[in-house]
């Protein structure tokens, strides 16, 4: 080191070392950037591979016959009619229970409940429910709905099990959307003399429909793909009949018999076909899987778009 007119002049090799360090850092960064990009694309690629695999094995199997036939011991004749009808009926029950209760719970917890230890406990509880394995919901439904309440191994029990499963999703989505509305807006409504319910009904709910709808779609998408709880309840894997129709052509025009009927569902049917030894049913399984994937992917895709649009529309 030499001092030159008050400035400290650093020797040449010091600069050289700094230069080398800087180079190394940049090189490491560049490598990580490449690896990161590669891994990201590979991981996303798996999604594509899944779809292509299913399409390759099952697309040709999907035709009108497939969609309108009952399962059969002969692979060529087997179809998903009872499966998709079952899924549809299940979703009617699930949506009918999970949406009103979930939204109501979300509104209560976010707008009405005082902030104390009890509500803290409820929050922890909901977080825990979201992480409970789906099969345990099936076990609960088996003990409670199937036997205790005597609903039997029916659409009602299955739908209720799935509703309990997706309830936390709806609750959390409702709470988060309500939370994004600034206190300012609530105060403006109250200052004009609105009751709490009027503020919720006239303002808070309408402004948060985007977020709530997103949560509902995600919840239903999850419910459609679930099979473990349904197997536990006793959903049959070989059903060669359809549950009774909800609408009748004679008074009283509505029937509830279908709620108590045995049932099957799309993922259960696929599980049944996958589990068979031999290759005969693999195209059927792939076809069922393809249908499931298309349903869940499009629902999730719709939810993502909804979320983006809701974020753009209202800026707080």
């Amino acid at each position, binding site marked *: 080191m030499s001092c030159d007119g008050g400035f400290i002049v650093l020797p040449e090799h010091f600069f050289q070392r700094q230069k080398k360090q800087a180079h190394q850092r940049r090189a490491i960064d560049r490598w990580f950037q490449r690896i990161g990009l590669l891994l990201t694309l590979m991981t996303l690629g798996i999604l594509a591979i899944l779809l292509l695999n299913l399409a390759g094995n099952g697309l040709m199997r999907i035709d009108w016959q497939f969609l309108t036939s009952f399962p059969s011991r002969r692979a060529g004749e087997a179809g998903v009619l009872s499966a998709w009808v079952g899924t549809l009926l299940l979703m009617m029950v699930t949506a009918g229970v999970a949406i009103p209760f979930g939204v109501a719970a979300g509104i209560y917890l976010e707008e009405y409940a005082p902030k104390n230890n009890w509500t803290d406990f409820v929050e922890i509880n909901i977080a825990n429910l979201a992480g409970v394995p789906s099969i345990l919901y099936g076990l609960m439904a088996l003990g409670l709905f199937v036997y205790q309440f005597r609903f039997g191994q029916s659409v009602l029990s299955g739908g209720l099990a799935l509703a309990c499963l997706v309830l936390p999703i709806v609750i959390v989505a409702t709470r988060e959307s309500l939370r994004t509305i600034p206190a300012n807006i609530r*105060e403006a*409504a109250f200052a004009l003399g609105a009751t709490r319910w009027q503020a919720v009904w006239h303002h808070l709910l309408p402004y948060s429909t985007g977020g709530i709808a997103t949560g509902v779609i995600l919840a239903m998408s999850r419910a459609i793909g679930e099979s473990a709880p349904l197997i536990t309840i006793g959903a049959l894997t070989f059903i060669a009949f359809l549950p009774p129709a909800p609408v009748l052509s004679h008074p009283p025009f509505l029937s509830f018999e279908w709620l108590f009927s045995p049932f099957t569902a799309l993922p259960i049917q696929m599980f049944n076909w996958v589990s068979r030894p031999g290759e005969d049913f693999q195209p059927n399984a792939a076809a069922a899987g393809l249908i499931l994937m298309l349903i869940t992917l499009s629902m999730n895709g719709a939810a993502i778009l909804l979320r983006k649009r809701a974020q753009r529309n*209202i800026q707080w």
Partner: protein
Amino acid sequence: MVNPQSLSSASSEIAGGVVQSSPKVRIEKLSFFYGTHQVLKSVSMDIPALQVTALIGPSGCGKTTLLRCLNRMHDLYPGNRYEGSVHVQPDGMDILGPGMDPIQVRMRFGMVFQKPNPFPKSIYENVAYGLRLQGMSKRRDLDERVERALREAAIWDEVKDRLHQMAHNLSGGQQQRLCIARAVATDPDVVLFDEPTSALDPIATSKIEELIVELKKRVTVLIVTHNLQQAGRISDMTAFMYLGELVEFGPTNQLFTNPSKPQTEDYISGRFG
């Protein structure tokens, strides 16, 4: 249109003599507690009818808290307690009375907030909301009241052709005037302004100051402001608060030129603030 000269003459009209109109709001020994912390200390004040009363004082003196006591906004949050009484004329309603419904109270007061907070609805619906709350539903009645309110807020000409567009498209100053229209649409007795121009530019500010002076012909105005010049420009009476107490209350002209308490004088001359 109000010209600058009459703005300053407004307060001098009153300065000479006793306030003629009976008080619109009589505040007696009002104390307010946030938990165990006492924020307002036995404030007593008569707010005159059809005049602009300004609440001034340094940050934390309790002026906004006092304002929010009048329409019981504090009830929305836990842990608050009122003591004392507040009576509104001509019927003598006790705002803080034991059986008093805060919602009824809120329907008699209008409030304009510091940051403009229009609902994400159309301009028309923003103004109509308070009217709908009070039971009005006939289209023709609503149209008439909405127009009247927008005129009173000096914004009718700017929005009359786009009543059904979203309120968010308006500028900040326009949004605040919309909020004023929303507050006056239901014909409240008193309108409470909480630092309404602190987030606005000077031109928008002066438009709002003008309309407040016009408004007082029909409603009583209570305005909290951080801006001493604003208080001097538009108010007839001024109340100076410090650390939760009402230090001095009197005609604006008098308080500004010849304050009787030394604290008032210190604040006004900028020795603290």
